């Protein structure tokens, strides 16, 4: 039957239809909706499944992997940088293999829309020597989930599905199964110590050889089932385009819209490739061009003087694909003259920049503001982490962003390398649970002196408010007790939209810091303004406007507080957009040096 599905929806439905009944992962754009949608479909189809957010991607991977060893069909979901966290487990698991099936879904983000790197998960699959499927649309993602689960079982290997953002967040009318045809498999762990607990060197050496044998079998299968049937459509043109994933769509559209002559071969499984068989196809062509994103995974597996791609410098090396880039590549290789078909003039006047910003009423803004107010910039270093609060960058309240959990370990490093400055670190509750606890233990046992502020809104806000351990189980998991368990006091502040109180709290931390010989740790109990359960009563109580006579256009509100409703009007004074103001009233005090912010009187 036909159904309109977003890519991540299609993936989740495919998992249900493939008989997957165990899913674990960690949210990260563009992968976040998969697990939640799987929970939704589990209810729709009344399937008794396990689908939970893990504390991090490595934990999620390992939970799913144990399920696959026990004979179940399982899945781990994450974004590409999450795969870095899970990679320790992946590299070994790929030697060991499995009994049931395991689909590892790692979503890539060409163009850096929501990620700190543009790394290619297909290249990671190549590194780990597991097969990878690369869908180009939601329909293909659905089909490839089913295929991936099937061949994972067949080859006893983890199979990766690598959708990019333009697949995960694409929407398409898809043809999907109506009913469930596949029953989940029963878990039954069979003891096999030489396999599941293989130790180096002998055990792993043997498994390493098996891994190569397995790859040869998969390469042959890739040729027979996925590559050779497509060569039947070749028309004997002079140019062959090798494509994978979204690259295929751009190539096909450009070729058909411009009536260009070229054969196209799409690799559904871009790794492992049967190198010799694929290269033999080149014989009939003058030029072979590889269209893939974001990194040259296919190109690295092939070699021929006829081959052009990112490695030869004929295609863009960074950023997402487009049809214009397809034409550029064809022109660079000398197949066509340069064309401007997919170029058009941009608007030339300056437009207001609209970087993403924290929501109006967000408590993070107040904490960032208070930290920079109390710990002066010249004598401080502000380390921060991955989450909504990263947008404190807009307030000039963040000096470093690296990866999940690095705010804490880098605070340690700065406290050693530049001890004349105070280091103030901010991290969210979900990121703290993900990878902030280990560096905190490290800092406490080595007596590193810095301030750590844990911003606890009790949700994974940035990726769509997925649940967190302490939200689901507050009686057992609590940040304050975790910090105390590590051996230091945990200062606690229940956030109020009153900047005087927030600033006073940060001042109290500064006092502790002066005489501290270990990290000064605090938790701020916040809420997310988009979190309907928690936000009630906090917003809309008092709205603010600007006394136009008192505003001296000093910029301080829009540079250090940076709440979206604040903007300059035509008179050159600050104004508050009533459509955007959340009515938190936090800006009434402290923010404006001339006290121009006043409460809106009842109308």
């Amino acid at each position: 039957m036909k159904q309109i599905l977003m890519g991540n929806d299609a993936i989740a439905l495919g998992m249900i239809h493939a008989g997957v009944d165990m899913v674990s992962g960690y949210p990260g754009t563009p992968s976040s909706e998969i697990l939640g949608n799987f929970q939704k479909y589990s209810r729709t189809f009344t399937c008794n499944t396990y689908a939970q957010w893990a504390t991090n991607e490595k934990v999620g991977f390992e939970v799913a992997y144990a399920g696959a060893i026990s004979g179940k069909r399982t899945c781990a979901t994450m974004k590409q940088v999450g795969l870095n966290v899970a990679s320790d487990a992946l590299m070994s698991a790929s030697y060991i293999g499995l009994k049931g099936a395991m689909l590892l879904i790692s979503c890539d983000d060409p163009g850096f829309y929501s990620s700190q790197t543009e790394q290619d998960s297909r290249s990671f699959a190549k590194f780990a020597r597991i097969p990878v499927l690369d869908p180009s649309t939601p329909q293909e993602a659905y089909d490839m989930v089913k295929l991936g689960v099937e061949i994972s079982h067949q080859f006893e290997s983890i199979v990766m599905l690598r959708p990019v953002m333009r697949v995960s967040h694409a929407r398409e009318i898809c043809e999907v199964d109506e009913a469930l045809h596949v029953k989940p498999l029963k878990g039954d762990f069979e003891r096999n110590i030489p396999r599941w607990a293989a130790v180096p060197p002998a055990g792993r050496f043997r498994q390493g050889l098996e891994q190569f044998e397995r790859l040869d079998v998969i390469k042959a299968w890739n040729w027979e089932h996925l590559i050779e049937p497509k060569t039947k459509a070749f028309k004997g043109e002079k140019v062959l385009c090798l494509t994978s994933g979204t690259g295929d769509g751009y190539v096909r559209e450009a070729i058909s819209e411009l009536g260009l002559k070229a054969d196209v071969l799409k690799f559904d499984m871009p790794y492992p490739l049967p190198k010799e068989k694929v290269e033999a196809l080149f014989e009939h062509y003058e030029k072979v061009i590889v269209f893939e994103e974001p990194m040259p995974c296919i190109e690295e597996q092939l070699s021929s003087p006829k081959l052009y791609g990112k490695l030869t410098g004929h295609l863009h090396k960074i950023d997402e694909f487009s049809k214009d880039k397809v034409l550029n590549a064809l022109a660079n290789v000398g197949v066509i003259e340069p064309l401007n078909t997919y170029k058009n003039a941009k608007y030339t006047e300056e437009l207001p920049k609209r970087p993403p910003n924290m929501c109006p009423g967000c408590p993070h803004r107040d904490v960032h503001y208070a930290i920079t107010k109390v710990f002066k910039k010249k004598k401080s270093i502000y380390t921060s982490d991955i989450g909504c609060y990263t947008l404190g960058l807009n307030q000039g309240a963040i000096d470093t962003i690296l990866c999940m959990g690095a705010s804490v370990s880098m605070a340690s490093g700065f406290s050693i390398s530049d001890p004349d400055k105070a280091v103030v670190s901010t991290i969210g509750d979900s990121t703290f649970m993900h990878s902030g606890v280990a560096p905190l233990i490290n800092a406490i046992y080595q007596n590193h002196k810095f301030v750590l502020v844990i911003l606890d809104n009790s949700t994974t806000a940035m990726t769509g408010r997925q649940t967190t351990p302490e939200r689901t189980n507050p009686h057992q998991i609590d940040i304050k007790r975790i910090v105390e368990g590590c051996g230091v006091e945990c200062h606690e502040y229940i956030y109020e939209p009153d900047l005087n109180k927030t600033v006073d709290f940060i001042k109290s931390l500064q006092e502790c810091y002066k005489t501290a010989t270990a990290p000064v740790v605090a938790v701020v109990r916040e809420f997310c303004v988009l979190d309907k359960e928690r936000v009630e009563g906090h917003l809309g109580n008092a709205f603010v406007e600007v006394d136009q006579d008192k505003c001296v256009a000093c910029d301080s509100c829009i540079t250090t507080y940076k709440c979206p409703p604040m903007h300059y009007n035509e008179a050159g004074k600050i104004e508050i957009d009533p459509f955007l103001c959340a009515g938190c009233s936090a800006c009434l005090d402290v923010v404006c040096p001339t006290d121009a912010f006043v409460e809106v009187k009842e109308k």
Partner: protein
Amino acid sequence: MKYQIVIAGIGGQGAVFLVKVLSIASALANQKCLGTENHGMSQRGGSVSCYVKIGDFYAPAIDEGQADLLIALEGAEALRNIQYLKKNEGTIVVNADKKFPKLDYPSFCIDAFSKAKKKEFPIDALNVYMLGATLALDPHFPFTCKEIEEAITQMNAKVAQKNIAVLHQGINDAKANA
């Protein structure tokens, strides 16, 4: 039939809602549909641009010089995306006041913010209001009012009546304006 639509706005204005409505409308009209939308970092009050491609397409994104229609929920976001329009013929339907600059494209400006300020319709239905305006103003728009109404109902039956009322307000205001 091939029709490519860019929907531009600011995070929170409901551009993604329109992608969903248009994809349902495509299904109702028996058309293929491929689109793409912004999530995550792009959501937090930042610029948002979504694509809907109706007909035979393989890639979800729209290239420069290709769109038949740009629906913009805010003026600056319209200007930020004009390069996606077909040269000289792509149509713009934009929520902007009279200060919106003259462009080499057929442009229709609706000052929806001032109407919302006068409480003529709720601001959180701005997206549906502008879709109504599009129905009235774009002569090549590939869906009928009935198909859009049905799509809005399928999206969320509970608030469908309210949304359809705003849709018609958008249609009527645009007609009165034109």
